């Protein structure tokens, strides 16, 4: 057998510039999914403070909520969740075989909608923190 040259994984990541809509959707969906499940773990961990009693619970939550950083992270979480939901819905349609021809458009729509929802929610999210 002749040798052949395996260009390895670097290739894939080097090619991100050439990704098309469906691939970006896949990348983002993956990323947001992982963030969400990561968050779920942290979330439950934080809530577990309630098991030590109401005080600890309250002070932890309010302590966290008073941090601007946490507020910003929450906006991030919202963005992540909203995108995952919208693109998730898009994927559900794709699974049903509906609207496959406009899969790229629906992806862009998810992005735009996510943007709008997040921007619109910012005031509610950060109010009181700054």
């Amino acid at each position: 057998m002749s040798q052949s040259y395996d260009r390895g994984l670097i290739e894939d990541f080097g090619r991100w510039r050439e990704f098309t809509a469906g691939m970006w959707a896949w990348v983002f969906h993956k990323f947001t999914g992982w963030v969400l499940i990561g968050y779920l773990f942290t979330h439950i961990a934080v809530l577990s403070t309630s098991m030590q009693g109401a005080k600890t619970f309250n002070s932890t939550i309010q302590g966290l909520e008073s941090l601007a950083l946490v507020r910003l992270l929450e906006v991030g979480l919202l963005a992540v969740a909203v995108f995952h939901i919208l693109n998730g819905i898009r994927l559900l349609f794709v699974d049903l075989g509906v609207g496959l021809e406009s899969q790229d458009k629906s992806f862009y729509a998810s992005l735009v909608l996510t943007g709008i929802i997040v921007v619109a929610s910012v005031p509610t999210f950060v109010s009181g923190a700054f």
Partner: protein
Amino acid sequence: MAQRYSSFSSGSTAWLLQRITAAFLVIVLAFHFFQLHFVTHAYEIEFAGSQARMENVGYFVTMVLFLVTATFHGVNGVYNALVNQGIDGIQKRVVQIVLGAAALLLVVQGIRVANTLAGF
């Protein structure tokens, strides 16, 4: 020839459940976010409030279901992502065990929290 499988674990079930949980999550997650960021603002959250909500059986059940479906959905998603990256053999076994344990832990701990809150 690529190998054949006896297909003892049907991928279709996991796939379908991932979609069904997703559909369910759309609703609950939206509700959850709305409830805790818009109806009650996050910074206003207090033990008492959470307790009050949790004492409602309907809410309690929804939250537990939310937890279970989200866990399944998330963990199965992660597992799928890893299989897509071509894990196999021992590696795959380990991932299955770790993810399974993590999921179990998450669900158990989550239910305990909910119980505490509800005061059951």
